[in-house]
């Protein structure tokens, strides 16, 4: 039976109030004003449940399955799960029962039947080294698989820092020649959901947006949903006031650490990291790294792995003194050489001195 989404939910035991509460929380997580939560609830409740659930194809490339873990573990049977229920996940290696040829067939069937309409989710980076031989599925390199699957996709979600920016595989010296999805696909809308792993609700938020409004949320210059990545961890951090007051933890077990002061000195990358951890938190809203006393690693930013030590404060440079010492030697040597040249010139001028007589005052 077809009807508004709210009816579908009601049949599954979800009341209108539960749904309103969920939307309020989702709006809060998406950093939308509280009024947007009500608007979303009204729009979604009224929206007709799709005749056919939108197809989602999820391809894993050079990845660690952490992103999948993050998504699947985040929601116990809850509203978020119901949002997932509103889609048809047609291919997901880790989750699907099918394997081998069956799985391949499911993939191709889904691609064929939903051509131009399906949502393609990618996690993991794409290795270009050795003609892509570093990572293959069913004899196909990730590059080929991506190009093929991207052709019929309505949009692509690059899930996790590897798919979005290349992530850890791309870290210096990048042995596999890993690149991000957006490095390869140029003609499809791409939503980057970086993070190592990304926050699950970002995924459901994007899906909710897709289901509610039939469109993708607003993205920033790096292709990330503005709602979640619009501000830095530092801006939304509950420890921010201590930064402003100049109160810092200096070690992980000092007075400042116990008082919950700012972790900037301990290497927190919050000021340069755009993500929603500070508001959405992790593990069902239990906590998040800074709340548990550890600085942000900056995992949702490009090349976070090569951004200097995790425990080095942002204002600390890599190590300029090593080169500086060499420069000092060169500078001193140059200085000494110049000194000799100058003194030579000066004493030459002196030895060429001709005593001035009265006649010498006139031209």
């Amino acid at each position, binding site marked *: 039976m077809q009807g508004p989404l709210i009816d579908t939910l009601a049949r599954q035991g979800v009341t209108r109030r539960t749904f309103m509460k969920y939307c309020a929380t989702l709006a809060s997580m998406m950093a939308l004003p509280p009024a947007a939560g009500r608007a979303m609830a009204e729009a979604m409740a009224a929206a007709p449940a799709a005749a056919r659930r939108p197809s989602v194809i999820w391809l894993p490339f050079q990845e660690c399955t952490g992103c999948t873990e993050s998504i699947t573990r985040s929601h116990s049977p809850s509203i978020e799960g119901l949002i997932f229920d509103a889609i048809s996940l047609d291919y997901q290696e880790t989750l699907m029962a099918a394997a081998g040829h069956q799985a391949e067939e499911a993939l191709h069937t889904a691609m064929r039947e939903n051509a131009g309409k399906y949502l393609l989710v990618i996690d993991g980076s794409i290795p270009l080294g050795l003609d892509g031989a570093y990572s293959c599925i069913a004899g196909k390199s990730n590059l080929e698989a991506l190009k093929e699957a991207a052709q019929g996709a309505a949009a692509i979600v690059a899930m996790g820092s590897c798919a979005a920016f290349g992530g850890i595989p791309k870290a210096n010296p990048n042995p596999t020649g890993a690149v991000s999805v957006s490095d390869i696909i140029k003609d499809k809308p791409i939503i980057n959901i970086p993070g190592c792993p990304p926050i699950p609700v970002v995924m459901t938020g994007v899906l909710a947006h897709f289901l509610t409004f039939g469109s993708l949320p607003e993205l920033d210059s*790096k292709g990330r949903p503005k709602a979640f990545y619009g501000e830095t961890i530092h*801006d939304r951090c509950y420890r921010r006031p201590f930064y402003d007051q100049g109160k810092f933890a200096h070690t992980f077990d000092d007075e400042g650490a116990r008082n919950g002061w700012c972790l*900037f000195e301990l290497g927190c990358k919050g*000021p*340069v990291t755009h993500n929603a951890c500070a508001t959405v938190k992790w593990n069902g809203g239990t906590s998040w790294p800074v709340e548990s006393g550890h600085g942000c690693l900056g995992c949702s930013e490009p090349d976070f792995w090569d951004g200097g030590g995790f425990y080095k404060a942002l204002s600390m*440079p890599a190590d300029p003194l090593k*080169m*500086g010492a060499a420069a000092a030697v060169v500078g001193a040597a140059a200085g000494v050489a110049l000194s000799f040249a100058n003194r030579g010139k000066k004493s030459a001028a002196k030895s060429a001195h001709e005593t001035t007589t009265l006649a010498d005052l006139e031209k």
Partner: protein
Amino acid sequence: MNDMQFLTWVRGTGLDIAVSIFVLGVLWRLFEIYSLGRKADLAAPRDTPGASGWHTIFRRSIPPQGMVKKSPVSYIGGYTFHIGLAIVVFLFAPHILLIKNLTGLSWPALPSQFIDLVTVVTMAAMVVVLADRINKPVKRYLSTFGDWFTWTLTFLPLLTGWLAVQHLLLPYTVMLALHILSVELLLIFLPFTKLFHAFTVFGSRWYLGKINGHKGVAV
């Protein structure tokens, strides 16, 4: 190059290059200047308490009698921006961390809001000093490209640092990178412009004090 790569470059390679040029330049220039030497003063010295190179190094920081009234902008503006710069550079927590990381030395920081205020006051003082340079016939007459250039070099780190902390104009990451880049430019040009007075001022004052101290004149 994305924001983070830009920041990583300025914090890494860029800073390496800047610090190297700075260190190299400072040593080279110091040798170049002070190796020229000075003839011993053969006149019989006259000792007067307070007349020495060391005394003058400190005493010259105090304006001579009546001079503040003659050029108030130079003195008040000059003091404000020099002291302000010192406070912002040496008493802002992230800066102390940098120094600590490089040298192992650290000291207490001032609250960020106070630093913020000092930065604004310092920038205001620099703008006033610049206006004075444009308005006063003597200063305008003496000014060369180097004067406008070094003013900009000094002002940019303040401005970009402030904008970064205030989250204005550009994303923090880009602003922070620009801030570090502007400091690197300052470091690179310091040994080769009039900014080098930061080093030679001590030598100059010492020579002045020494030469006049020999005559028993406390300058």
